[in-house]
């Protein structure tokens, strides 16, 4: 009994995610890559220039209305910083368990990205934190400034991989 409902849920979520991913790929074509599509989680990688359009498309057509989390990951070998937005929905009950990872990449030497603050106001502090911790400048964000670290912080952003902890 339980197992059956489990399988049904799984099927439903897969169908749902397939639907969303297909529509995004259809709209933006080659600029979107689907990285993975697991149960209730899928990740798409978009080109930096269309991040705003993609998020508007996701918000208006599929009902993603907030970010669960936004963060960045430093990849020094590829000379890139990956920025992830974990999108979720409070409006669409089908999307309640579903989290879509919208990610983009920016270069490490001049990290810049378009801010999503006008589409999802909930990214405000997440983007400020990412700016501080990884040095990614968010174009359009009103406050790219000191947030969590002390005011006199003069080192490189701490979550970069070349920032080493003392004694490690």
């Amino acid at each position, binding site marked *: 009994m339980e197992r059956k409902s489990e399988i049904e849920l799984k099927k439903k979520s897969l169908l749902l995610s397939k639907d969303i991913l297909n529509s995004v790929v259809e709209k933006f074509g080659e600029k979107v890559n689907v990285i993975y599509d697991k149960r209730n989680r899928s990740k798409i990688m978009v080109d930096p220039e269309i991040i705003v359009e993609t998020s508007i498309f996701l918000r208006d057509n599929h009902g993603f209305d907030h970010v669960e989390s936004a963060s960045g990951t430093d990849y020094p070998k590829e000379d890139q910083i990956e920025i992830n937005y974990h999108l979720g929905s409070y409006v669409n009950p089908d999307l309640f368990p579903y989290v879509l990872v919208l990610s983009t990449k920016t270069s490490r030497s001049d990290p810049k990205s378009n801010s999503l603050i006008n589409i999802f106001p909930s990214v405000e502090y997440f983007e400020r934190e990412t700016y501080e911790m990884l040095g990614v400048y968010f174009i359009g964000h009103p406050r790219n400034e000191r947030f969590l*670290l*002390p*005011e006199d*912080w003069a*080192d490189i952003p*701490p979550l970069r991989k070349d*920032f080493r*902890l*003392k*004694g*490690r």
Partner: protein
Amino acid sequence: MLKQLVNPVNPSNFNILVSKLSDVLVKALDEPLGYAINWGRVWSLWPVHLETACCSVEFGGSSDPRYDVERFGILEAFGSLRQCDLIVVQGTVTRKMAPRLRMVYDQMPEPKYVIAMGACAITGGLYLDSYNVLPGCDGIIPVDVYVPGCPPRPETLIQGTFLLQEKIKRSKIK
């Protein structure tokens, strides 16, 4: 001798008399007053409301009905730091908090005492290698009593205040 002392023409002699008298007075008053005031300080330690990190949960827990530090005259949830005489450094001191901690210490009236609560406040604890954490608060303010634990149980904190009380009892008043 007495004639010399009370001779009003020579003011230095009069000063000697006064200072002798005041010495006698001080000797008589010092010990009982010292006892009295130290006794007052021992049973009336009001901690300042400054939370540096997560030990504040156990600090708050120590004033709950089971541990009830008001038994020992420790009144918590006090408003202004001007009326407090004890800082309990509740856990990790970050680089951002350190200047504020010092500022709070400087603003408190004398006499003031400091308890470093938790491993982080003593050495940095679990966060020893973190980039934003100081290795203990004793580089910023002088610590009287160290209370180890991560976090220390309320009983341990109470034990720490006992040690502080012992220290106050043995101190000289100014």
